[in-house]
C-alpha cells in the first residue's frame, strides 16, 4: 500500500537539512511483518533512517533484529506494510518501466550470504557481468565488458584468471568479493552492504574496506553498511543506527554512539566486542546480557529490551520508552535513543 504512508516524526535523523535537496535516501516509519494471524512476526516496526549522498550509515543489531529485512525493503525486494521509502524524494515502489530500471541501476546490494547469493552455475565473469544484461547501455560491447570485469576483479582483490571459475571453487571470502564486484558493476549511487565482510579474513576485509572507501571518495557512493563487527562499522560509518527487535533504538554520529552510548543495549553490544589485545582479559568489563532475544512473534510490551536489561524497572513494561535526544555540539545528526533510563556518557563501561 504505497499510498498509505504515515509520516509521524519519531526519533531518528532529522529531515530538515540546510539545503532544500531531499536526502539521497529517506525512510520513514517503515513497518514490515511476515505471516498472518497468531503467527505474525513483526520484522520492522516503524523504522526511520536517512542517508545523504556519499555518506555511510552503519546498521548494527542483534541477529534477527530486522537488518536484512530493512535492506530488502531498501532494495524494493519487499514492499513495506507501512511507511515511506524515498530516493531523492522519489518513491521506488511507484516506479514502472524505464524509471524503475534507472532507479535499479542506482541502488545495489551486497548480500549477507555469499553462498546463496551467487548462482552456482554461472562463472565469476557471468556473475559480475550479469547486471549489464539488463542494463545493456552501461558497458555496450563485449570487449569493454571483458576489460571491465578484469578491472572489477582486481578491484576486489581477485585474480583475472578467476573469471572463468565457478562459485564452488572459491572459498567463502572469495565469493563475497564476487558479490561486491557485481554490486559495483553498475556504478551505483547507493550500495546496501549486508554484512559484506563478515565471511572475510582480515587481510581481505581490509582490501575490501579500502575499495569501498575509495569508491566513496572517488565516486561519491553512499553505503548502508550492515555488520556485527563493530570495529568495522566504526571504521567505515559516518553515522550509526542500532536496531533491536525491529526498532531503531539508537542513532547518532559514529563517535557519539560508540563512545557515549545512551541505550543499555548499545552499551552491551560495545562491551561484547572482543579486542585485539592478548594481554587484556576483557570478560570483567563485558556486560553479559541475560536470557535470549525474545521471540519476534511475541514482542515484549513497553520497552522491548526490558527482558534482558539490567536497568529495567516496572515502568519499562508498561510505557513505551521516549526518544531521548542528546544534541551534539558540532555539525551532524543529533544522538537519539529510545530509553526510559538512558546511560550517561561512559557510565556503563570503561
Amino acid at each position, binding site marked *: 500500500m504505497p499510498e498509505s504512508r504515515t509520516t509521524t516524526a519519531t526519533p531518528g535523523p532529522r529531515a530538515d537539512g540546510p539545503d532544500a535537496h531531499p536526502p539521497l535516501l529517506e525512510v520513514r516509519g517503515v513497518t514490515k511483518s511476515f505471516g498472518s494471524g497468531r503467527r505474525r512476526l513483526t520484522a520492522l516496526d516503524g523504522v526511520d533512517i536517512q542517508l545523504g549522498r556519499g555518506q555511510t550509515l552503519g546498521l548494527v*543489531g*542483534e*541477529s*534477527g533484529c530486522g537488518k536484512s529485512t530493512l535492506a530488502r525493503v531498501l532494495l524494493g525486494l519487499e514492499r513495506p506494510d507501512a511507511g515511506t521509502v524515498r530516493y531523492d524524494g522519489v518513491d521506488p515502489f511507484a516506479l514502472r518501466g524505464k524509471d524503475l530500471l534507472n532507479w535499479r541501476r542506482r541502488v545495489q546490494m551486497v548480500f549477507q550470504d555469499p553462498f546463496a547469493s551467487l548462482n552456482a552455475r554461472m562463472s565469476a565473469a557471468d556473475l559480475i557481468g550479469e547486471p549489464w544484461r539488463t542494463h545493456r547501455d552501461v558497458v555496450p560491447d563485449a570487449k569493454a565488458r571483458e576489460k571491465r570485469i578484469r578491472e572489477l576483479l582486481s578491484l576486489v*582483490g*581477485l*585474480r583475472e*584468471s578467476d573469471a572463468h571459475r565457478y562459485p564452488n*571453487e*572459491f*572459498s*567463502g*571470502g*572469495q565469493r563475497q568479493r564476487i558479490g561486491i564486484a557485481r554490486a559495483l558493476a553498475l556504478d551505483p549511487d547507493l550500495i546496501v552492504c549486508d554484512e559484506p565482510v*563478515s*565471511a*572475510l*579474513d*582480515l*587481510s*581481505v*576485509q*581490509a*582490501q575490501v*574496506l*579500502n575499495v569501498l*572507501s*575509495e569508491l566513496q*571518495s572517488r565516486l561519491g557512493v553512499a553505503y548502508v553498511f550492515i555488520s*556485527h*563487527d*563493530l*570495529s*568495522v562499522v*566504526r*571504521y*567505515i*560509518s559516518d553515522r550509526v543506527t542500532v536496531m533491536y527487535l525491529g526498532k531503531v533504538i539508537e542513532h547518532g554520529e*559514529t563517535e557519539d554512539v560508540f563512545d557515549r552510548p545512551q541505550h543499555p543495549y548499545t552499551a*552491551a*553490544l560495545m562491551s*561484547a*566486542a*572482543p*579486542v*585485539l*589485545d*592478548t*594481554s587484556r*582479559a*576483557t*570478560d570483567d568489563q*563485558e556486560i*553479559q*546480557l541475560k*536470557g*535470549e*532475544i525474545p521471540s519476534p512473534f511475541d514482542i515484549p510490551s513497553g520497552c522491548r529490551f526490558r527482558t534482558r536489561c539490567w536497568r529495567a524497572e516496572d515502568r519499562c513494561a508498561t510505557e513505551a520508552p521516549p526518544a531521548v535526544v542528546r544534541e551534539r555540539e558540532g555539525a551532524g545528526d543529533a544522538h537519539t535513543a529510545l530509553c526510559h533510563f538512558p546511560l550517561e556518557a561512559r557510565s556503563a563501561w570503561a
Partner: protein
Amino acid sequence: MTTTSAPAPSATEPALDVEGLCVDLNTASGTLRAVDGVSFSVRRGRTLALLGESGCGKSMTALSVVGLLDPAAEVTGGAVRVRGKDTLRMSAAERRKLAGPVLSIVFQDALTALNPVQPVGRQIGEPFRIHRGLSRRQAEEKAVELMTRVGIPEPRQRAKSYPHQFSGGMRQRLLIAMAVALDPDVLIADEPTTALDVTVQAQIMRLLRDLQDERDMAVVLITHDLAVVAQRADDVVVMYAGTVVENGPVHDVFSSPRHPYTRGLLDSVPEDAERGRPLPAVPGSPPELSAVPPGCVFQARCPLVRERCVRERPSLRSTGDGRSAACHFSEELDRA
C-alpha cells in the same frame, strides 16, 4: 589439568598431532594440492588457533583430521595422530570409534548442520547411543543435561523441538553440546561464531572456554577474528596457500610476528584505524592452487621479497621460544 580416562595421553604428549598433512583436490581442470604439508599439535587443555586468509585450506585441514573430507578431496600424505595412533591409516570402523569420544568437530554452518527432521534432543543424545549403547530414553536424558549445560532454557521441552525452531545462536550451542557430549580429547571448532552477532558470539566463546576448562579438552579453533584468537587461544598457527607460514604462542606471535604475512594480517585490523584513512592491507591475492610458484608461496605479495624467495621455498624453521616461521628473512621482521 587432570587426566581423566585411562588411555588418555599424558599432559606432555599432544592430544592431537598433525604432521605433514597433504590434501589433494580434484577439479574439472585437474588435481590441486589444497593443503601442503601442514603440521601442528595441541595438548589437552590448550587452545590452538588456526588463522589464515580465506581459502588457504583451514577447513580442509580440519575436515581431513576428522576424516570428513568431501569426495572431491583426498588426503595424500602425512599423519594425524591421536592417542598415539595415526587415524589416516585406520579402518573406517576404527575411525568411527574415535569419532565422538576422542575427536569432535563443530562446524560453522549451524543452520544446516542439524538434521532438520529430527528433534534436537535425539540428535544430541545420539553419541551416547552410538558409543555408550544407551537406550533412547537414557540418551535423551543425557541430551537434556547437555542442553542445560550449554544454557538452553527449558531444555526438557526444547529437546522435543526441531532445529528450525531455534535461533542461530541456540543452534550453534546445540552443535557444541553435541560435540562435547562424550568429553572428547580434541575439539575442532571451524569458525563457530562467524555467522553470529557479537553478543551471541561472546556467549558462545565463553561457553567453549568453560567447557574446555571443565573437560580438559584440546581445542583447535579456526577463525578469522584476530581478537577472538588473541583472547581465547594459547597457540596460533598461521596458514597461507595451504602451508603453515608461522606458529607459536599467541601472545608472542601477535606482538612480534616473524612472517610478513602474519604481520600484514595484524596490521589490517580496523580496530584503531582512523576513518577515511586506508587500512594497511596486504596487497594482491594468494597464488592460485593450480599454479603455486616453486619458491616462497608468499613471494608475490611480500614486501621483503628477494631473489632467493623465488628460487627456494623456505621451510618452517624454528626461531626459538617454541615458535617457527617459514621465511628466509624472518629475523629482519623481528628487527623492523
